[in-house]
C-alpha cells in the first residue's frame, strides 16, 4: 500500500463482489480492494480484524471469516446490530466500502496447527473461528482432528450453512449443531452448546479449545473446558469490544491495563484470568 493505514487512519476502497445471506441477521460480504496493489500486498492472520467504513457511518471493527488462503478475497461476516452494520446490510454487489487494517493479535496458528482442535461457537461467533478452521483445513501439514460445536437460538438462526456443509463432508471434521429452542420439524439437538460436549471425544492432552460467541456463552464454555481438564493456555477465545482506532490509542476497548485491539482480541484463559473481563467474571 502506498500509505500505511496503521499510521494515518485512511481507509482503502474495497468492492463488494458477493453477498451471502447467512440468516435473517447475518450477511457475509466477499470483498476485493479496488487497487490491485492493495490486493497484492495485503496479508492477515485468522483472528485479526479490519476497521470497516461506510458513507456517513464512521467505522466498526469486523473480524475476518475468510482465511489468508483465499487469495485476493476477504470475507467479513456482519450481524446487523448498529447503524453501520444496518447500512452494510443494505448494500448490493458492486458497492464500495472502506477498509483499513489488519489489526489485532491473531490466533496462535503455529501452535494450533500441532493440536486437535475443539471449536465452540455461538451465533456470529462462528465467523472468526471459521477463519481458523478453514486455515487448518487448507494447511497440508495439519494432521489433527477438528471438532466443531455450534449453537444457535433457533433452527432459522443457524448461519454459515455453506461452510457447515463442506465441513460435514470432511473426514477429519466432526461438526455438531444445537439450538436453544427447536421448532416444528427440527430433528437435531436442543440445548446450550455445552450439552454437545457429551457427544464428542474430549482429550485435553492433545486438544485446544477455541471459543467465540456472546459473552455469557463464552463464560459458560470457558468454565466447561476448564472443568474438563483443558489447561488455561489451551482455552482460547476472541472478544468483541467497542473500538475507534484499532491501533491502541483511542482506548475505547480498554480491559483493565490491556487494550483489546492490540493486546487481543484473541486471549487465552491464562491471560484473561489476570483481567476483570465480563467473559469470565
Amino acid at each position, binding site marked *: 500500500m502506498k500509505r500505511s493505514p496503521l499510521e494515518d487512519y*485512511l481507509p482503502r*476502497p474495497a468492492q463488494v463482489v458477493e453477498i451471502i445471506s447467512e440468516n435473517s441477521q447475518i450477511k457475509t460480504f466477499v470483498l476485493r480492494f479496488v487497487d490491485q496493489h492493495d490486493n497484492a500486498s495485503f496479508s492477515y492472520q485468522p483472528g485479526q480484524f479490519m476497521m470497516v467504513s461506510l458513507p456517513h457511518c464512521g*467505522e466498526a471493527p469486523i473480524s475476518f471469516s475468510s482465511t489468508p488462503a483465499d487469495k485476493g478475497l476477504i470475507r467479513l461476516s456482519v450481524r446487523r*446490530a*448498529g447503524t453501520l452494520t444496518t447500512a452494510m446490510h443494505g448494500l448490493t454487489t458492486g458497492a464500495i466500502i*472502506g477498509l483499513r487494517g489488519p489489526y489485532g493479535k491473531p490466533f496462535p496458528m503455529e501452535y494450533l496447527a500441532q493440536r486437535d482442535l475443539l471449536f465452540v461457537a455461538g451465533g456470529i461467533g462462528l465467523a472468526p473461528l471459521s477463519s481458523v478452521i478453514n486455515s487448518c483445513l487448507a494447511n497440508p501439514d495439519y494432521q489433527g482432528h477438528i471438532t466443531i460445536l455450534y449453537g444457535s437460538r433457533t433452527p432459522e438462526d443457524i448461519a454459515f450453512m455453506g461452510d457447515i456443509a463442506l465441513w460435514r463432508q470432511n473426514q477429519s471434521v466432526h461438526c455438531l449443531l444445537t439450538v436453544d429452542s427447536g421448532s416444528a420439524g427440527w430433528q437435531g439437538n436442543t440445548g446450550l452448546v455445552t450439552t454437545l460436549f457429551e457427544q464428542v471425544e474430549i482429550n485435553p492432552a492433545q486438544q485446544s479449545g477455541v471459543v467465540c460467541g456472546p459473552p455469557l456463552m463464552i463464560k459458560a464454555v470457558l468454565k466447561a473446558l476448564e472443568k474438563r481438564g483443558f489447561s488455561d493456555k489451551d482455552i482460547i477465545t476472541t472478544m468483541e469490544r467497542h473500538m*475507534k482506532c484499532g491501533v491502541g*490509542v483511542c482506548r475505547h*476497548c480498554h480491559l483493565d491495563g490491556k487494550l483489546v485491539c492490540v493486546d487481543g482480541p484473541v486471549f487465552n484463559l491464562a491471560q484473561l484470568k489476570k483481567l476483570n473481563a465480563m467473559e469470565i467474571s
Partner: protein
Amino acid sequence: MTGKLTLKKDHLTAFLRKLSKEYSLVAPLQNRHGDTLFTEIDDVDSATLDLAKQPQNSIKQFLLPQREVLCTYRCESAEAYAFTPADTALPPTVFFGVRSCDLSGVLYMDVTFLHGTSDSPYRQKRLKSILIGLNCNHPFPNCFCNATKSGPFLEDGADLQFTDIGDCFLVEVGRSQGQAIVEKWRHFFTPAEEQDVHRQYQAFLESRGSFSHIVHVDQVIKRLQGEGVPDAIWHQLSKRCQDCGGCAFICPTCTCFTITDAPLTAESGERIRSWDACTFSGFTKMAGGHNPVVRKTDAIRQRFMHKLCYDVQKHGRPSCVGCGRCVDMCFGGTDILRFINMACAGS
C-alpha cells in the same frame, strides 16, 4: 563556565519577536476577559504575555486538537466512495512558557502516539514543535507535580528550559532545536555566572518547599499495584461523577478520542477525530447496547487505574503530571486528589 546562558527579561519581547518571524508562536496570553490561555500570537508587541498565572489550558489542543479532520470522503453513489487524506500538519511552531507539568504531558503524549504506535496526525505536528519550558517558581494551590515527579523544575525534555531568576531568565539548552535557536540568535544570550546558577538553585528550593498539598502519589501507586483499593471507593466516586468529561478535556495527558463521520452534504463528509473521556457512559458501549463497563460502579476506575497503575506498569511512571487542573474543574467531588486521599486513608 557553567554551560548555561541568561536572557535579560527586558530582551524577552525582542527575542519572541525574532522567533515569531520564523515560527508560529504559542504562549500563555491574557485575553480581554482576564483569562490566561495558551494562544497563538499574532503580534508579539500587542499580546499580553502572562507568565505569572497557570494557563487554563495545556498545549495538548495544539498537538491533539479537540476536533481534527483526519480525512474527507465522497460518496456520490454506492460504487463511488473514496477518501482523501486531510492536512494534519502544523507549521513550525515554538511553544513558549510551557510549565514543567505541561511539558511532561507532551512527553507522555509522545510515548502514546509515537512509541507504541506511530500516529501520523500527531507525529506531523510534534515534529514541527519546539518546546521552551518554564520552571515553576511558585506552585499554584492545587499543584502536586513534586509528587508525580514531573516538576516543579525539569532537567530534560525541553528544547530550551527557562527559569525566572529575577531580572533575567537562566536558559538551559536541552534538545538540538534549542541549540539551533541560541546559535541563531546568540546576541540575546550571555553565558551564565556561578551566581546565576545559584539563584536558580535557590528558586528551586523555595518552589519545592511551597506546595500546599502533600499528595501521596507513590503510596497510592504501591497500593493499586498491590492489594488494590476497596471497591466501595470506586463505587462511591463513580456514583458522584457527573459524566461531564471536564477532567479529561482539561488534562494534559488524557488522550482518549473518538472517530466519527460528519456529513457535509448527502454526497460528502469529513472523518473527525475528537476528544473523548473514558468516564463517559457511552465510551465502551457496543452496537446493540452491551456495555462491558458498569457505569454505576466503575465509571471512574479506568481513569485512575490508567494514570496511577497501568502506565506505571507499562512505562515506569504515572501519567498524572500533577497540574491540578482537574481538581479545579471537578464539581462532582471525584477528582484525583480526593481519590488519592481516600485510597491512602487508613494506611
